[in-house]
């Protein structure tokens, strides 16, 4: 028996343990996800930081030296943060985000309370109410624009003919345009809140309500003292998710107003830096600022609001 044979049998006897084999299998199963996330999420995020310090223009994208250290600058941040309308844009973004989030959750709560009990056509109701959420944003944004058109829009026509109100150009006039994009946001995403809240409502134990009814609790009291406290968790989660997503929302406002008439939010401004002014570096810098503001708000949320839910 040669020495190498001895080595082989020893290795075979040792081998990988069952736990090692299991871990190896797990890694290989997670590998594709890991690679995709690494390439499409982690790497771009890190590289975005680097780009934010480079004076790159869209035109010289193909030729620019993207790795050179010599041209690093904070000029992009100067431009972005000191720009005339930086603070107004942040203000509009926060107004849009907070109002849109709260309104969509409130509407979702109302719709969920309605769909909770059995009534004829409840299945249809549950289906139709989800339309705004599942339909492509391009289609719904354009139908809103048509309906809000000053000249021939349904809303203006009804307001004019049926109620004798003055015609308005809803999407190109301050502050009406901001109100409209907030309403659009609430309309489009209340079904999301509806789904979550309805699922939670249906999981609430029936006997609580029976006991309350026996004790003579009014319907309003049952809602206020039984239903609402049990929904706190799901409402908090919804607020968090919707806040983050609305804050980062681009398509809705871009398609409705293009950021005009006082509706320019940070994401639309980033797009404007990129394709309106061809300043890639400034766009990257502003998207870093966006992420920073979001992180600040999340920290505040977890510090002051999420803790309260423990009680």
């Amino acid at each position, binding site marked *: 028996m040669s020495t190498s044979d001895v080595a082989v049998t020893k290795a075979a006897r040792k081998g990988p343990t069952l736990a090692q084999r299991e*871990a190896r*299998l*797990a*890694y290989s*199963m*997670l590998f*594709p*996800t890991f690679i*995709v*996330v690494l*390439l499409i*999420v982690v790497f*771009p*995020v890190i590289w*975005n930081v680097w780009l934010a310090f480079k004076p790159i223009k869209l*035109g010289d994208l193909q030729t620019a030296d*993207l790795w050179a250290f010599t041209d690093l600058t904070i000029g992009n941040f100067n431009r972005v943060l000191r720009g005339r309308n930086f603070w107004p844009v942040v203000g509009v973004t926060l107004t849009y985000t907070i109002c849109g989030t709260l309104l969509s959750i409130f509407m979702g709560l*109302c*719709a969920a309370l*309605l769909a909770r009990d059995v*009534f004829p056509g409840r299945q249809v109701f*549950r*289906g139709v*109410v*989800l*339309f*705004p959420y*599942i339909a*492509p*944003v*391009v*289609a*719904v944004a*354009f*139908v809103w624009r*048509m*309906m809000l058109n000053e*000249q*021939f829009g*349904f809303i203006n*026509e*009804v307001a004019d*003919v049926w109620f004798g109100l003055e015609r308005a150009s809803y999407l190109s006039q301050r502050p009406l345009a901001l109100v409209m994009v907030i309403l659009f946001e609430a309309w489009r995403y209340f079904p999301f809140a509806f*789904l*979550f809240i309805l*699922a*939670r409502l249906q999981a609430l134990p029936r006997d609580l309500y029976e006991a309350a009814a026996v004790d*003579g609790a*009014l*319907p309003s009291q049952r809602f206020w003292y039984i239903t609402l406290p049990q929904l706190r968790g799901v409402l908090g989660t919804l607020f968090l998710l919707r806040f*983050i*997503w609305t*804050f*980062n929302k*681009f398509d809705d406002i871009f398609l409705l107003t293009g950021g005009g008439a006082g509706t320019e939010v940070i*994401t639309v401004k980033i797009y404007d830096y990129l394709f309106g002014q061809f300043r*890639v570096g400034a766009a*990257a810098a502003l*998207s870093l600022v966006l*992420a920073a503001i979001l992180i600040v708000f999340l920290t505040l949320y977890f510090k002051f609001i999420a803790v309260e839910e423990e009680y």
Partner: protein
Amino acid sequence: MSRDELEQIVFKTLKVVGIAFFLLISGFPFFWMLVLSFRPLDQVIQEPLAMPSVEQVVSLSTYKGVLLPSPEPPPTLNLLGMEIPWNLGTVPGGKFLVQFVANSLGVAVVTVILTLIFSILGAYAVTRLKFRGQGFFNVMILLIYMFPAIVLAIPLFIVFSRLGLRGSLGGLIIVYLAQTLPVSLYMLRSYFQTIPAELEEAGLIDGLTRVGVIRRITLPLAAPAVASVALYVFMIAWNEFLFALLFLLEKPNVWTLSLGVYQLNTQEVPKTWLMAGSVIITVPIIVIFFYAERFLTEGLAAGGVKG
């Protein structure tokens, strides 16, 4: 009348009003989209609230116009030094809205298949196998779930430009994959956790491989969750607009339907066509949804609440 009775009556009335209100605001815009897709703009301006005539509906002329080739030469628009055709009905090489329907369908189906394969493997590993870094992986999934797409958009735009991946549907699919994988993993993980591990262990003891266990035991039991993930991913890929706009704008023959319909919004294209395009992009989603509503709602709710 007691306060209780009064409240009962008030709430009953509110309920009827509320149900009508939500049905109206959710359904009416879609009905109106359909109406406007049949009526030419000059008629709409004359009588904004009128319904289309029967002939207008039956002839389907706007739908034929928007879907099929038109003989006129394409008007072009200069963007970043590139001549790009602006009017959707007249994209060169006979590519029309039907082409975009095919592009979108292809992108959505491939995204669904890849996401399902990757997320089923991943979710199984996370729920059933022990390995180092498990906690880290779970946190990572959640973080990406909430990550702003716009922060990824600029670096990806640059990388794709440099690599020449811009204007390819493959590049778009990879991006959609990254966007849908975390949610899918999360939804499947919650569902896999409800399946008793004993069933799978029995399968292993009986001599099945891990892959065999997943195929013969886990997947059949998790079929509703898999269906809802598939629907969710299809919906995201079919509806997506931002990355399609960033990556495909200069190459009209690979436009997805979202981007194609967006390009209908110009002076040269009749608004009736824009509405017809909107109907065309909406109908498949609504049809799929009605066919499989149960899966979608249950899946979305389960993915969110159990976590």
